[in-house]
């Protein structure tokens, strides 16, 4: 085993980990080349890693280059002949908030991570290395530990069950990813809905729900908006992860979705006098009248009819 390691180290000694700025003798930094002999697997593949570019960045200081950019100064670790206790940042020993601090030292400037400190993931101690694998990634771009859906399903098994229903957004098929709609690094609160929920949902172009990023025809603006869509969002009627209904409705049939709100009760609705009931010409005893969207075809919003008939 020892011979194999030596041989491997010998092979990769031909490789360079980038143009390292020689550290001063009194510097605690050793440079990434000092890590190669004992960590050949990481060193051998590191040129594929997005972090490799730190080793060739012009003018970068030792604390921002290569292995030591993340793991901290390594001279003491080398002098000690290894051991996790001598690595300033041994991620397997670090507390979640320490992992977060280490990564955000460089990655905080990306605006989609602006809410990471207050995200539900961070509160649950799900931090960077819970999903990302820096040295054993399945994804060259984002260094995820596995395919994105698999990473998410690992904890969100209920969501996996929802995506196992007959009709769903095509995440398992690879057409979509969870991050098309969600921001796992945390989202802003209080966009249009009032409460906390749902969390981690990314906003679309007009700060509306992410559904509109793809379903552009539903965005409007329309002369006659279906107020529920704009006030409480698409999930007022739809179950976005999966459903037995081919339009991802929350109920198997459309008329119960409509009638549960259009019952005229209380002070609900845009006029605060109850959401209008159907007119007396509708006969729900006749199945023909249960197909609401046969006539109310523009249910997401219409320019021609306030009742969304065309």
């Amino acid at each position, binding site marked *: 085993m020892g011979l194999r390691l030596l041989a491997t180290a010998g092979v990769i000694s031909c490789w360079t980990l980038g143009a390292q700025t020689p550290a001063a003798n009194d510097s605690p930094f050793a440079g990434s080349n000092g890590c190669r002999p004992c960590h050949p697997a990481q060193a051998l593949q590191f040129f594929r890693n997005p972090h490799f570019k730190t080793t*060739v960045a012009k003018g970068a200081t030792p604390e921002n280059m290569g292995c030591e950019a993340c793991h901290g100064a390594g001279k003491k670790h080398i002098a000690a002949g290894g051991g996790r206790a001598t690595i300033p940042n041994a991620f397997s020993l670090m507390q979640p*908030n*320490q992992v977060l601090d280490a990564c955000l030292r460089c990655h*905080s400037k990306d*605006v989609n991570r602006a*809410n990471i*400190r207050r995200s539900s993931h*961070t509160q649950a*101690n799900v931090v960077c290395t819970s999903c990302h694998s820096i040295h054993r990634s399945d994804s*060259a771009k984002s260094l995820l530990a596995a395919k994105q859906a698999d990473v998410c*399903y690992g904890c969100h*098994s*209920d969501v*996996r*069950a929802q995506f*196992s*229903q007959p009709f769903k957004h*095509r995440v*398992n098929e*690879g057409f*979509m990813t969870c991050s098309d709609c969600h921001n796992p690094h945390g989202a802003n*609160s*209080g*966009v249009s809905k*009032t*409460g*906390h*929920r749902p969390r981690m949902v990314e906003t679309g*172009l007009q700060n509306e729900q992410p559904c509109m990023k793809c379903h*552009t025809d539903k965005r*409007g603006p*329309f002369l*006659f908006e279906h*107020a529920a869509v*704009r006030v409480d969002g698409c999930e007022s009627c739809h179950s976005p992860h999966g459903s*037995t*209904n081919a339009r991802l409705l929350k109920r*198997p*049939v*459309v008329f119960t979705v409509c009638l*549960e*709100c259009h019952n005229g*009760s209380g002070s*609900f*609705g*845009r006029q*605060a006098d109850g959401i209008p009931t159907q*007119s*007396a010409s*509708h006969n*729900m*005893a006749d199945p*023909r009248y*249960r197909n609401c969207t*046969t*006539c109310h*075809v523009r249910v997401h919003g219409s*320019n021609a009819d*306030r009742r969304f008939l*065309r």
Partner: protein
Amino acid sequence: MRVLLIVLANVAAHAQPVVAPTPQTAGSPRGDNAGAYNITNSWEVGYRFRDVDGNNGKYRSDVNFGNGVRLLGGTLGVTSRDGKGKWMDELLLDVRGLGNDPYQFSSFRVQKNALYRYDLLWRSNEYFNPALPIAGGDHFLSTNRQMQDHDLTLLPQSKLKFRVGYSRNTQGGPGLWTGQWFDGRGDEYSYFANIRRNQDEYRLGGDLQIGRLKLSISRGWELFKDDTNFNRDTLTPGANTTDRNTLSFLRRDEPLHGKTPYWRAHLLAELSKQFTIHGRFTHSDGQRDFIYDEFARGTDRLGAGRNRQTLLTGAGRRPVTTGHATLTWIPNAKVTVTNQTGYHQTRMEGDGKYSEINNGSAGIAIAQFQFLGIRNVSNTSEASWQPVKQAGVFGSYHYAERRIRSNEQEDFEIPRGTVPIEQINRNKAGIFGARLNPVAPLRILFSAEVGRNDRPFYPTSDKNYEAYTARASWRQKKFDLSTDFKSFNNANSTSLYVHSSTGRTWGATTGFTPRANVRIDAGYNYLHLDTLTGLAYFADFELVESNRSYYVSNLHTLHAGVQAQVRKNVDLYAGFVRTQDRGDGRSAAPGTQSIFTAAQVFPVSYASPLARVSFQVRANLRANFGWQYYDYAEKFARAQNYAAHTGYVSLSYSF
């Protein structure tokens, strides 16, 4: 390395995807050196087949894989070994389903360290909806949606960088629409729709870092066009075959064009290690100009000849302004405190002029106007405390005030309209949670949220709600087990009607690696939902107010999978997923008259076993075979049931 690769492949098998492409790739993961670059690649070409027994339309709605030759998957990676490539340092290409799969994508990245980075994501989806009878009112659609996103970043690692981007989203194809002519008591007809929609988005931006200050600004323009046209020139009966209503000709053009220019700005100020301020501001102007031009000819419900021409012009506008300010205070390694104030304002207004000519004589002319304004101000304070390594707690308090203003106007000969309305809803919600890590492999999380809305917008909105979550996981190299429980209860009541909703889910998943070349995964989930809502509807001209809408769903999901590597060159996978909604356990559908009085259920089962074999023939060549079966079965009605065999044979090759 072999162990590593097996572990990664096993993780990929954790969620059972469609049978192809094959997860195992041809060629060495270390790649081959060519000059200053290292190249990895694997291309899988094969034939996909299907055999559907039963309702093919429903199969296409749910699965939609067809027959034919495909580039099932492909990857290419070209990476400079020293990070100093002449024109580029990295090129990544990933494709899937090219040829004629219903779900295709391609992602591409090329970058030169410190100089530029270009990303492309292209996706295509063949959508099919057969107008399923279970969802009455659905419309037949067979459309293709293509999306592409291009993003170029200049000087990506510098303190001043520039971004340019372009996205395009198109949807096109035939559809069958429905509508009602010639008045509110007329008949319903279907008509052809030639769907043509596209959206283009252009964006520019830049990022600047000065010391601890990071500023990001984006400017974008979205352009949308919907040029769908509709026509019907053959005489077909309406939904009600006993009336005298007919529609013999229909032509409709309703072009809708618009734009949404927007600004986005983000500011991050890391004042010290302990204190950070983040600000976000966005503003967008949305406008859609529309024309609605329709000519319809037929007979009305009394049998009299009718022709009607409708012309409508106008515009809808929706400016949106948002702002967020987030303060983060980290006094020490154990405590994090954040506070976020959010502001979101949407104004939706539009006007239109509607005119109608009936049988060649002037009909009605209406001027329409509508306004809906939503302003939401929220504040959230959150704190997290980790007193010891093994335990921590967190909590938050959220307050939001949403003001909704509404006004609608329609002016006929005698002006009429609604009185402007203003309503305010206040939400107060609190969260408390705890996380435990008593021993290294074990993690436990519990959180509870209690929220109150004093004026929800509609009867099924959240009003008095409680949400509970609990998770426990045990993760070791060879064995992992995780369980989770969620509960959500909501009660929204008024003096006459009640809406309540109860949802509970719990599940357990496990993975076991008894040997380096074998991995077993299994899991079970139970999702329960029942809702009860007051109804008011008309039946035989009588208002019925005594019924409730009661919906029950008991969804059970089971999945299992085994992956094994045999003799270093054969990879096997067998998996099974079964989803079953048992409803409330009844065995027969209720009668049509009791549709509201009995619990609504939709018992259905959906199972999908699959098996896959991948042989490594040579170092750079693999032969793959796979089969996946889909069984969809409704319990009450069988018209939509189907069983489908799908599968593929393919070769994976690395050059």
